[in-house]
């Protein structure tokens, strides 16, 4: 088991290098740079703009910039943001917890709903109930998150619901008691978490349903039924246990997406998360800020897969042997 983990950890290194180099090159292939928008200002001379370019090292060749970035990374320095001129780690740190809170609560909503729904749909496959659920989840999949978020916000204003329109805390909340602050954040969390959570339910339900259906068609299930085991035991003990592999893999992916998730929803609901920060960084070509988040996203993705693989190996001995 330890050798398995060790091997996976070493495999991560070239993968992360590849991810980072590719992102860097793609970003440079896009036309213009951070100073492009400054070039259209009637009051700034070309000399001043050149000075800004030099300050950020933008006058160096691409590869030099990449190697310089990589060298700093080895010393755990993600560099400075062009836009903010403070360390990238500070910027990401100031938003990461907010995004994590949103991601975890929306994941909780989607798993708690998807699990019973998916199992029920698989057991009652091809019945009216299953078809209704399929219809509803396809509907859920086809409504864009930002649109649902906009609809919910509009509903709050239209019907004067006692919910805030966006943000994460109320003004002045800093001086309130602990529990009041918790409730305040939860009230703000409700809309974005529901938007993202319901989006997750639809696809998770589909995966779980088809995973369980596959298992239920296996011969050992038929055997179990033939032996006269009660249906409940067939499904929960034999069926679900073996359908777990699909779930674990999905869980790994979800872990990887925890920090990168939900830019559009964050923007519509003014949730102060990473997604919004990074989207703005991409738009303004703030290279190091983008690279910082790509790196952290890459590490999360690779770790998520690793965790999933370890869980798989633990749940299913066949994986370990392979």
């Amino acid at each position, binding site marked *: 088991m330890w050798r398995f983990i060790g091997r996976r950890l070493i495999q991560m290194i070239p993968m992360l290098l590849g991810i980072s180099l590719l992102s860097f090159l793609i970003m440079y292939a896009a036309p213009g740079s951070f100073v492009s928008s*400054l070039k259209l200002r009637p009051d700034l001379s070309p000399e*001043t703009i050149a000075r800004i370019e030099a300050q950020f090292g933008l006058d160096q060749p691409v590869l030099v910039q990449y190697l310089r970035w990589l060298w700093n990374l080895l010393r755990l320095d993600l560099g400075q943001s062009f836009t903010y001129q403070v360390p990238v780690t500070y*910027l990401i740190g100031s938003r990461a917890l907010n995004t994590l809170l949103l991601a975890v609560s929306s994941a909780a909503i989607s798993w708690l709903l998807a699990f019973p729904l998916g199992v029920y749909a698989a057991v009652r496959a091809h019945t009216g109930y299953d078809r209704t659920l399929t219809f509803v989840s396809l509907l859920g999949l086809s409504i864009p998150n930002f649109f649902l978020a906009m609809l919910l916000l509009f509903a709050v204003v239209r019907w004067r619901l006692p919910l805030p329109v966006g943000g994460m805390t109320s003004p002045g909340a800093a001086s309130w008691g602990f529990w009041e602050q918790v409730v305040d954040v939860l009230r703000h969390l409700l809309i974005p978490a529901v938007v993202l959570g319901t989006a997750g339910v639809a696809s998770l339900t589909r995966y779980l349903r088809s995973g369980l259906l596959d298992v239920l068609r296996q011969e050992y299930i038929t055997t179990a039924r033939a032996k006269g085991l009660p249906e409940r035991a067939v499904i929960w003990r034999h069926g679900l246990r073996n359908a777990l592999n699909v779930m674990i893999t999905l869980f790994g992916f979800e872990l990887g997406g925890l920090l990168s998730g939900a830019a559009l929803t964050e923007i519509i609901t003014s949730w102060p998360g990473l997604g919004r920060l990074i989207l703005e960084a991409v738009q303004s070509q703030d290279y190091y800020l983008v690279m910082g988040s790509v790196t952290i996203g890459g590490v999360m993705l690779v770790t998520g897969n690793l965790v999933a693989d370890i869980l798989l190996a633990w749940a299913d001995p066949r994986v370990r042997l392979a």
Partner: protein
Amino acid sequence: MRWSVARVALAVVVLAGLWVGTAAAGVTTLDPEVRPVSGGKYGGVFRYSVLGDPKTFNYFLAKETSSTDILDRVFEGLTTADGVTTEVIPSLAKSWEISPDNRVITFHLRRGVQWHDGRELTADDVIFSFDLVYDPNIPNNFVDGLTIDGQPLTYEKVDDYTVRFTLPRVYAPILRSIGIPIVPKHLLYDAWREGRFNQMWGIDTDPRQIVGTGPYRIVEYRPGERIVFERNPNWWQVDQDGNPLPYIQRLEASIAGNQDVQVLKFLNNEIDYLAPNLARVADLELQADQKGFRLINGGPAFGTNFIVFNQNPNTVPQPKLSWFTDKAFRQAMAHALDKESIIDLAYGGLAQPQWSPIEAANVFFHKPDVKQYPYDLQRAQAILAEAGYRKGSDGRLRDPQGNVVEFELLTNAGNRARETIGTLFKADLERLGIRVNFQPVDFNLLVRKLSETFDWDAIIIGLTGGVEPASGNNVWPSSGGLHMWYPFQERPATDWEARIDYLFEEGTKYLDPNERKRYYDEFQDIVAEQVPLIYTVNPEAWFAIYDYVQNARPTAYGGLFYQIGEIWLER
């Protein structure tokens, strides 16, 4: 003996302590500015919304309005501009004198102006701030406006409340550009000496450490959420009864990611004030009475949108170059631009046509009676025919040499107004027999074409505006880098460009605005005649404000915040 030394020492310490104590408490504003307002109510929280996070609290590094809009509450300059008349008015300097040869300006600071930490502002802070401007290691936006023919100003402290500036030559725009934010020497000098100035006052700094002289100071910043300001009780402005301004205790700017959310927040009364997208104004007007707010038209906004044809002989091939450099061709194009439809389709009727390079918002310098090109396709056709362009039997326009007239028109994708302008213009030109390949492209690609490769036919783009005509110094003089149709000319390619070079040079040589206006009037006539840029329309600036906000008079130029100290809340 020893005992008495101790006693003297003790007395000195006590006295020094007393003196420091009184000094700290004893800074009082001796030169207050009386504003024409009275009877305002103190207290309350004024809530508004901004689109993006501030990027820095260090004004010398700020490059976007998302930062400067925040910092303008906190920092002040020697001069500022009136939000209504756009004139230069006193700020930290209570007055100034100009020498008879117009080259030396002596500023008198208000005495007793306090930094937010209680220290007094003196001439040393002013000198320090100008040292920062001219430090080549600090890439700031102010240095270009304070450099005349490549030369910096020289400046000296006369006494604690007097600073004298000497210009290399008479340069009229200086009174405006000299109003840079003054920052506290006592907090930033050491960092500057040690080369750490560019790391100071980033957004990771506790905002309470950001010290200015303005009406408000920042007390809380939550990234992505809000910025909270608290009233400066020692500000130098007072109302007519001598009561200190500002009236409002706190300002809260919530950071919303987009304009739709801002509108919802306003309708939900989570904010008190909104500068809405023009497409929203009609809808808001319907709800105004019921919800208790009003809409105010702040007049046409600064800033321009225009169509420009490339006249650069180095990058534009024939026969396109001969069309684009032909004045008749450009005038015909101007007649083919349907400004009324642009106003209706892109701005919901809330805009005005622009004819002169200086917008109507620039009340003083704008010349209203320049040559105009009303929308008239027949007239456009007639002008083209007179210049030798003929429509063939296939319905396509040919130039005098028989080439089919066809070109590419670009704009930046995502700007709805510009996309509308392009679509309308393309349709009208097609009726003239000109095929236009209209394509919205990435903004940065457009900038690269304008500033590096110069390979384009026609572009729809805009520039930010301002009161001072000379701030178009990169655009109008033929050597300018933003002289888009043919930038970086070694010597002017045409007589009229040479004339504009001359007018822009001369226009800065007089301090009397009326004297200057002659030059800029002629400049406006030339541009209207030659149409190197075909101007489109100026949208109006609208504001929505709840009725309990008293004495708010927002303008397109100053927004609401030029008079933030004079507003109060009745709720």
